[in-house]
């Protein structure tokens, strides 16, 4: 091993890959049945970067040579940076050796497009194939599907990878046209559709024949960059909702734009990363996927943007005060899930525990509910409850005054973006 050269390549190609935020290593059920190396199940974050993001996979580009010139991307053709490329064997060795030391859950391999879509995709597939067949590697593999790659290659990729993803890059077609004139949204949606059909079909086969090979068991995901163009949150969430519904996506990732390049089409270089907005989008995403909210309850024509100073669930509650107060000893789980300050787990615990005895404030607090928020919206087995007829605005003031919100001090930075 030529340590110096590998180190240099790793630095360049990890640096270029880090703006892809997907880090999930869960959702797969690959077992270590061949007495080989590794398995993929629940996902473990092995470390965390100083910016607080999870490090779960060896996330690198095969190469940062690229024939495209997308304005938002550090690896764009016209950008004057150091270029590097790994060989297939180098990626395989790094993955195996990191994995054996329990540094990582697996590999997330993406690439700049160095000749054409198929050549690039073929090389990515080679890495995955080598890991699975020659090294009996059962850890997690996430491959980027290169837009425009052939169906044959995509099918082969699905046989070796746990997850495949195509990045939509921009939430809307217009945004993509503006910043990535070489790319066509159709080329991205086509492989998504192909994968969706293939995944459904393979699942059916698996039901009939137990020995049928597994195909991308952790499904597919995508990523959109936010804050690089001027879409509102409504446009972003409606688009995410569309892909969840029509393409069976496991996840949509929202990546706050980090200004890396000077370009008149983009926010200036000193613009802050829209971290709070990104966080609110994830919260809204969770509400859609786990809490039974419809997208138009979170954002709509009257409410095109998410509140930055309060979370979207609280925001919805304040706009819909007619629903509250809710009696937590009687209400359906679906209703309890909508109460601010109550999460998925505590909602389930409430529904289980109330079968035994009526719950009071003390119980609720012990179950893990954020009572300082929830108390404006619920009644329980106690005479003490909020009797004042408070308006949404007043409640918001109370809650904000009580919480030492880490977001308040960020607020001015956020506003300067729009």
């Amino acid at each position: 091993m030529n340590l110096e050269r590998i180190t240099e390549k790793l630095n360049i190609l990890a640096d270029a890959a880090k703006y892809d935020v997907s880090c999930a290593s869960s959702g797969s059920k690959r077992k270590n049945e061949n007495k080989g190396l590794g398995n993929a199940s629940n996902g473990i974050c092995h470390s965390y970067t100083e910016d607080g993001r999870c490090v779960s996979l060896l996330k690198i580009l095969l190469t940062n040579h690229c024939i495209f010139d997308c304005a938002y991307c550090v690896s764009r053709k016209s950008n004057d940076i150091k270029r590097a490329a790994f060989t297939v064997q180098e990626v395989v060795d790094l993955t195996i050796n990191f994995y054996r030391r329990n540094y990582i859950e697996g590999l997330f391999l993406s690439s700049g497009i160095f000749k054409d879509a198929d050549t690039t995709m073929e090389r990515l597939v080679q890495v995955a194939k080598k890991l699975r067949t020659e090294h009996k590697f059962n850890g997690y593999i996430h491959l980027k599907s290169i837009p425009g790659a052939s169906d044959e290659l995509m099918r082969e990729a699905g046989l070796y990878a746990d997850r495949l993803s195509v990045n939509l890059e921009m939430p809307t077609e217009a945004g993509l046209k503006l910043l990535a004139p070489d790319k066509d949204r159709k080329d991205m949606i086509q492989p998504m559709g192909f994968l969706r059909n293939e995944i459904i079909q393979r699942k059916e086969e698996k039901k009939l024949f137990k020995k049928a090979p597994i195909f991308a068991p952790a499904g597919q995901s995508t990523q959109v960059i936010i804050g690089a163009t001027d879409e509102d949150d409504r446009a972003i969430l409606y688009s995410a909702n569309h892909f969840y519904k029509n393409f069976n996506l496991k996840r949509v990732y929202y990546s706050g734009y980090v200004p890396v390049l000077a370009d008149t089409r983009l926010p200036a270089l000193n613009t802050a990363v829209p971290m709070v907005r990104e966080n609110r989008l994830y919260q809204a995403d969770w509400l859609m996927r786990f809490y039974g909210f419809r997208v138009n309850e979170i954002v709509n024509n009257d409410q095109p943007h998410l509140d930055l100073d309060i979370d979207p669930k609280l925001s919805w509650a304040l706009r819909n005060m007619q629903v509250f107060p809710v009696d937590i000893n009687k209400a359906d789980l679906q209703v309890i899930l909508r109460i601010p300050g109550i999460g998925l787990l505590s909602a389930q615990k409430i529904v289980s525990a109330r079968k035994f005895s009526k719950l009071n404030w003390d119980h609720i607090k012990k179950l893990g509910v954020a009572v300082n928020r929830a108390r404006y919206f619920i009644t329980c087995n106690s005479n003490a409850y909020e009797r004042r007829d408070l308006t949404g605005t007043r409640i918001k003031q109370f809650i904000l005054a009580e919480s030492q919100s880490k977001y308040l001090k960020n607020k001015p930075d956020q506003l300067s973006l729009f």
Partner: protein
Amino acid sequence: MTTTLIYDSTFEGLLTAVFEVYEHRLEYVKLVKGEWRSTALFDNVMQIVTDEHRYGRVLKGLQKKLSPNGMQRLYVAHLAAIDDADAAVLGYIRYVFDAPQNIEEDYGNRHVMRVSEIVKMMRREKHRMEAFVRFQRLQDGLFYSVIEPDFNVLPMLIRHFKNRYADQKWMIYDLKRKYGIYYDLHQVEYMEMDFSDGQGAGNVINSFTDDEDGYQHLWKNYFKSVNIASRKNTKLHIRHIPKRYWKHLTEKI
């Protein structure tokens, strides 16, 4: 009056104590781990002798009224060896026997809630160790790691590491509790080691394989490269990896 029950700190011993509680119709009891020393300190002391017949009956009774998951949780709570864990487990078991129905989900009961909290702490620590173990490859091919978890979670780690690293020899050593688990490609065994040479269990640099330094170097570099400086968030970073774990993490040393 409170009766003090002294038992041998095993789970079976604890269950035998439960048997005695019912046998002698004890109302207020206190559980103490350890050896019989002197009666002068206590008015009312009973030495529990772990007995297969007795704990077997308690176990059987519990199995009738609890799900396998509920049984598992009691064992994990006991393993935690936290001050009030045994009291919570005892309270839980008495509630199980007193109630006509399955009470596993009655989080309004303080014993059920406390056991649930302790189990949550244990599971979190187990999960952390699954993440924070850093193997170092030694010359004899062994992948070796040292940890100092908050609770005694080694027994809970066996299954995960055995399934995952089936084709390499590995060992995880708990520096705080002075024992380890060792996998020899076939099965996992508990190990106690004597480090009389003064080096200690943590110091194995002299026995690294040739490429060990290289991969540690690469991993540190990788860790630095994936950071996005303009998103720095130290508070979040430390919440995810509390500082007490840093000394065994290759990338944080």
